[in-house]
């Protein structure tokens, strides 16, 4: 049934979203980092994490530079 397949696809998408959000930075990312989220995040971004962003400490822009 296509309805069952669609329900399972929605589950897979939700799981991917949560893993991307809560897994440590870089673990589940492929290709170039999104603007403002990679280790080469431009210096114009805020020094701290954005309020209410659950990415918080796993976001590269919140890390002190090496």
């Amino acid at each position, binding site marked *: 049934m296509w*309805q069952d397949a669609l329900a399972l696809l929605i*589950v897979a998408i*939700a*799981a991917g*979203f949560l893993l991307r959000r*809560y897994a440590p930075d870089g673990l589940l990312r492929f290709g170039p980092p999104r603007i403002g989220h990679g280790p080469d995040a431009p210096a114009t971004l805020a020094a701290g*994490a954005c309020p*209410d962003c659950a990415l918080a*400490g796993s976001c590269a822009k919140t890390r002190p530079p090496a």
Partner: protein
Amino acid sequence: MTAATLATNGLKPACIALVGPPNSGKTTLFNTLTGGRQKTANYPGVTVERKSGFLKTPGGHAVEVLDLPGSYSLRARSPDEAITRDVVLGRQQRETLPDAIVCVTDATNLNQHLRLLLELRPLGRPLILALNMMDIAQRRGCRIDTEALSRELGIPVVTTVAMRKSGVRELLDRIDALLKHPAGDGATALDDWQEPSPDAIRAYHHEVGRVLRQAVVEEGAPARVTRQLDRVLLHPIAGPLALLALLFLMFQAVFSWAEAPMDWIDGSVSGLQQWLAAHLPESLLKSLLVDGIIAGVGGVVVFLPQILILFFFILLLEDSGYMTRAAFLMDRLMSAAGLNGRAFIPLLSSFACAVPGVMATRAIAHPLDRLVTILIAPLMTCSARLPVYVLLIAAFVPNTAIWGGVGLQGLVMFGLYAAGIVGALAVAAVLRLTLLKGGRQPLLMELPSYKWPNAANVLLGLWERTKIFLRRIGTIILSLMVILWFLSTFPAPPAGAAEPAIYYSFAGLIGRGLEPLLAPIGFNWQIAIALVPGLAAREVAVAALGTVYALSGDEGAVAGSLAATLAQDWTLATALSLLAWYVFAPQCLATLAAVRRETNSWRWAAFMFAYLMALAYLAALITYRVALALGAG
């Protein structure tokens, strides 16, 4: 205009830093210049990190504007002031030296505010003085000769009213003029910079006095309304009573005003749920939509009106200037618990969300004072707890009036908020006596004049809260509910199973696994299931309960409200125990991550998680046992 737009146009933006003492209107000017929507309020310490935005001047210059935390001096004493000092001196990593500095000052308070400008002047950077809030200064009869001020200071002076966008064009013209004739990089002056000594600061104060004698034609009267209001609101007896009355009114309104919009949202969600249940063929998709997504997400979205009413009051108080008075009134109580007076603002921010609250502790100078404040910030009742409290109060506390019209539900809500505050003060006192001794500093905070709250600010604040709430529902909560539905649906129950299907599922397995641990505090396996996804964010537990009861085959959970289902299924003792749990439980990953970042250590985040979890369990255990003993089982 964005950085990307500028990049496509091949423009490298010049950098202008907005610098000034706290509460001088830098962020309002920043929002006016860049079209940004950064939070503003009538109290010091709202901005604790650097923010940036972009604009194009009338002269065609692309400009990046930096909004920096407020500071009275380059002699930084707290992490947020250190950010300002380092950016201005070009010492901040990943940050270029600003091409020019706009020093924003409150025109009604030049005596205190001009010192920073005098400290900036020897750096040799292009500098403009923006005399902000000129309308208020003029209303008080203050007259400033800006030409004389400019002559005495040797820099351009512009008058602005950032809130009304007045004087902005002149400021941009001045910026254009500075950028046309760029100064040198000022490297020598910056390299030679040394923190001003106490003697140098005294000399700056004398110089401020001299400059003002030349430039201020009439000083104007101090704010009369502010003085009269403060006579009552800062009175040792009337002041705390007024504060209590205000908070009490706020919680009464949260219940009484929200009823109609909540009923409307609830009706719409139930209607959609029933329509889908009637029209979709039996399939996994139908179960996912009806029992998983709508039962879960719909159970949380209904609390939007109450969250907005609470923030309406908070925004009014912030914009009016009352919040610093509340900090002043609370100082004696807070210092008795070993807290720095400046902790009030971060703790206040934590009523919205602990993450900005933890970040706002950057305004606290002493590391130990700051650490204590960070560790107790999650005990303030954040807006994510509101859905849990409202759900359980609506289910178990009768909607009756006591003591001449005071609503019992509002009173219980007030008590839960008070329990969080008392818990925070008690934990702070214990930490001060044990792990974190020393480092206490007195409160020194400027009391701003009262102002009429700005309607646009309040509406913008409410809109931002709505967006944050709906974004969380549409992302984290929705995703967690989909996963919870999956875990609650698979594997299928065995043939001839006597219990509902969820009982045999992965989620049921987890719930039954946790049940022995949670049974002493009165939690059943359904609550145990809801607490697991609720670790990500507190309000997720409400959505999870909706999904769990819908999948338990409870018709009431599908057709009616979740509150009615819980009222039937739980005892009063269990409900009270869960409320006590939520006063303390550290169920928020974002807060733990923020604590790790701000303390630069997982150790303190782990310590906070452990002590809050232990407190939650203990509070729930005592509440449950006492309730049982009183016959609430």
